[in-house]
């Protein structure tokens, strides 16, 4: 079969698994205590309120319990995680200025090429800090702010940042929000002014290179009235034999009549604990769209959530999860209908193979004032063999008589007839099965920009390799 060209080049696992040496990086010692939190604040020259905030979050972290309802995270020992690793470089706005080894890593991942071809701005984070950030002049001239989070925290938009930071994802929500509040570093701030339509996507790419480290980037996006944005998030890491941790937070504010699409292709290494939180609040007549592909990590807890606060606000979630050998991926979504005439459309697909565990967990809540709410949820699961596990755990909580709620879920296997038919057309069994799985994932890939869809299809093909016999 011919290899397909994508912006991540001829994709193969080795491009994700290349390990750079930690050249004189600043690495705080492993574990979590007040001294470490203060050191992070010193490193980042935090304003006073943020210093206090971090310490309060640490206290909360120590008080809150590990969730009892999801995959086990016994293999994650915070005493052996370094929460801050700063590469020996500051942030650059041309790739030529980025240190050679780091630049080469992002070149292999295809980020500069993607930027040249199809992105309006790129932020590239390496371990705990951004090493590259750039935005197209035309987009800047529209008044769009796209910057690293630390600059936003201290610059012209500091009040806006303070007003919104961890207001949607409050630290008390759960233990790992509290952890994030204590040790966050890096990430992006985006502000799209009223009426501005950003026609080309912005992208942040998060690369965690350091062994036994955590990455805790914070993404805050505010799309003002009538504005429009597509934001893409990518992430990867090389594989180590010790646990790494990703606990980012994404807070999205979608104002009246605005639209935000947030696309993610997550391909963390299989030693990664991905305990990530994402939440959007959507005002009147506004629209939130999530496109999510989860392929990597050892253990994932990932449920982008949406609050449809404004009347006539809408949400669409399209997601796929592929759990292979050694992976326990607990993914899904949450939506709360608050305003009148709100609607949500959810389409999830999950694939489990080679002993992987895929759990699709969803919740739809319709509050008593959400008159005219409509929600349609579809969850489809595919079992590729009989050593894997696939669970679907949906909850619907409906509190109004004026709602129209539909839910359907199904689980099944690859049809022998379909495999036989494709093999009769000359495909090997392996390719036939890979093609069927790609077709199963088609609704997600159709929602992605072409080059990311190609990457996703290649990831599926890679995951399916060796699945026969």
């Amino acid at each position: 079969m011919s290899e397909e060209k994508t912006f991540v080049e001829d994709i193969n696992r080795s491009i994700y698994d290349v390990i750079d040496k930690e050249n004189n990086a600043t690495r705080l010692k492993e574990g979590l205590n007040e001294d470490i939190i203060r050191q992070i604040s010193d490193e980042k020259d935090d304003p006073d309120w943020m210093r206090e905030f971090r310490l309060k979050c640490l206290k909360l972290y120590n008080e809150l319990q590990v969730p009892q309802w999801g995959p086990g995270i016994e293999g994650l020992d915070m005493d052996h995680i370094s929460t801050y690793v700063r590469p020996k470089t500051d942030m650059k706005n041309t790739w030529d200025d980025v240190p050679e080894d780091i630049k080469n890593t992002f070149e292999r991942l295809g980020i500069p090429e993607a930027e040249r071809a199809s992105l309006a701005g790129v932020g590239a984070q390496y371990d705990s800090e951004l090493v590259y950030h750039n935005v197209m002049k035309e987009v800047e001239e529209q008044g769009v702010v796209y910057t690293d989070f630390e600059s936003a925290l201290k610059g012209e938009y500091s009040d806006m940042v303070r007003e919104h930071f961890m207001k949607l994802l409050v630290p008390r929500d759960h233990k790992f929000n509290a952890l994030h509040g204590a040790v966050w570093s890096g990430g992006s701030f985006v502000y799209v002014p009223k009426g501005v339509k950003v026609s080309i996507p912005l992208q942040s790419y998060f690369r965690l290179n350091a062994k036994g480290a955590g990455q805790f980037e914070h993404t805050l996006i505010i799309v003002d009235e009538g504005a429009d944005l597509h934001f893409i998030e990518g992430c990867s890491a090389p594989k180590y034999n010790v646990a790494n941790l990703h606990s980012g937070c994404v807070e999205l504010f979608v104002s009246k009549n605005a639209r935000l699409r947030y696309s993610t292709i997550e391909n963390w290494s299989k030693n990664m604990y991905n305990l990530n939180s994402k939440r959007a609040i959507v005002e009147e007549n506004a629209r939130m769209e999530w496109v999510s592909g989860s392929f990597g990590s050892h253990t994932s807890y990932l449920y982008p959530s949406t609050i449809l606060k404004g009347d006539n606000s809408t949400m669409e979630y399209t997601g796929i999860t592929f759990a292979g050998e050694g992976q326990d991926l607990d993914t899904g979504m949450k939506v709360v209908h608050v305003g009148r005439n709100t609607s949500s459309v959810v389409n999830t697909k999950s694939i489990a193979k080679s002993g992987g565990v895929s759990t699709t967990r969803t919740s739809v809540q319709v509050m008593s004032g959400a008159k005219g709410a409509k929600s349609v949820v579809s969850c489809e699961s595919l079992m590729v063999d009989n050593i894997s596990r696939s669970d679907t755990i949906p909850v619907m909580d409906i509190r109004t008589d004026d709602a129209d709620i539909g839910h359907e879920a199904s689980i099944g296997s690859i049809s022998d007839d379909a495999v036989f038919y494709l093999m009769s057309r000359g495909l090997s069994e392996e390719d036939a099965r890979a093609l069927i799985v790609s077709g199963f994932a088609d609704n997600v890939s159709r929602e992605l920009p072409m080059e990311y869809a190609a990457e996703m299809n290649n990831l599926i093909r890679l995951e399916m390799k060796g699945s026969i016999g």
Partner: protein
Amino acid sequence: MAENIMINSLVPPTWNRLKVNEAFVELPEKINMISQDEGVVPADDAGADAWNIETGCGDELSAYLNAQGIKPLTAAANSEELFVVKPAFTADSAQVLCFDATEGKTLNILTDLSSGDDVQGTGVFRILIRARENSVVNLTQILRPGKGLRLINDIGTQVSDKAKVNLVQVFTGGSDIYAGYRSELSGEDAFADCRIGLVRGENETLDMNYVMKHLAPRSKSEINVSGALSNGAKKTFRGTIDFVRGCAGAEGAENESILILDDTVINKTVPLILCTEENVAGSHGASIGKPAEEMLYYMMSRGIDRKRALEILERASLTAAAAHIENADALEYVMNIIDENREDD
């Protein structure tokens, strides 16, 4: 001292804030065994052990009943004639009945779980069923406790090769009800079918946990729930289809259709599909909301006022389940009660 026990646990659990992972009920310090005059014999200790079948409400309820000395009564029913059970609930009382459907036989059982409004307290009723090879058990339950009786209705079944257990439950009015059902489909081509009709109002709670555990090849299960909620009713339905490795060719389906008739209700639906077997087909569908305006308009155009139209839809929720009652005597019994209730309204 009253005991607070956990029942109807969701396995695996989900987000705690949704408050669907389990229900807690406070049970009395002392509960009395309800005697059954005809057709049953108390199981001895060895016999009681033999009826160690898991149920929907779960282990904490079993431990409570054991500690209270509630002995299983083995029902002698073993013919197609309808076996009617109408436990005489008094304040804080319990009964456990066991049915052994022998190979190739058909059992028809009707339980009418009701009480006078003067009965105050907690009633626990449990049925354990062993459906042996090629047997059929048709279990019909009507649940209509009086206002003062909180009812816990709990069922556990083991279904062998080519055996079939048909459950029809009709919940009408009454007080708070906790209902558990668990079917262990341990035989090849075993089949468990649940048809549930419910109408709840007047701040009543209905907390349900239904589990279909597919252990054997080609086993099949269906859960169908139709209902109407109004006037402060709170309903939680947990339905789990669990495909265990080795149950190749198994099929499971659950469907729920709930009408919400006003803004005071809370309807929670939790339909799980768990799967460790490749070659299975599982599905779930739910439809929750208000009655279609077109349908109401049509009925009103035929001279039926809106209130009466809604009553007809409520009744249809019950009769949709009752239509699956196989035994003619049981069907007549249940339909009479449904119509009686509607006339009372």
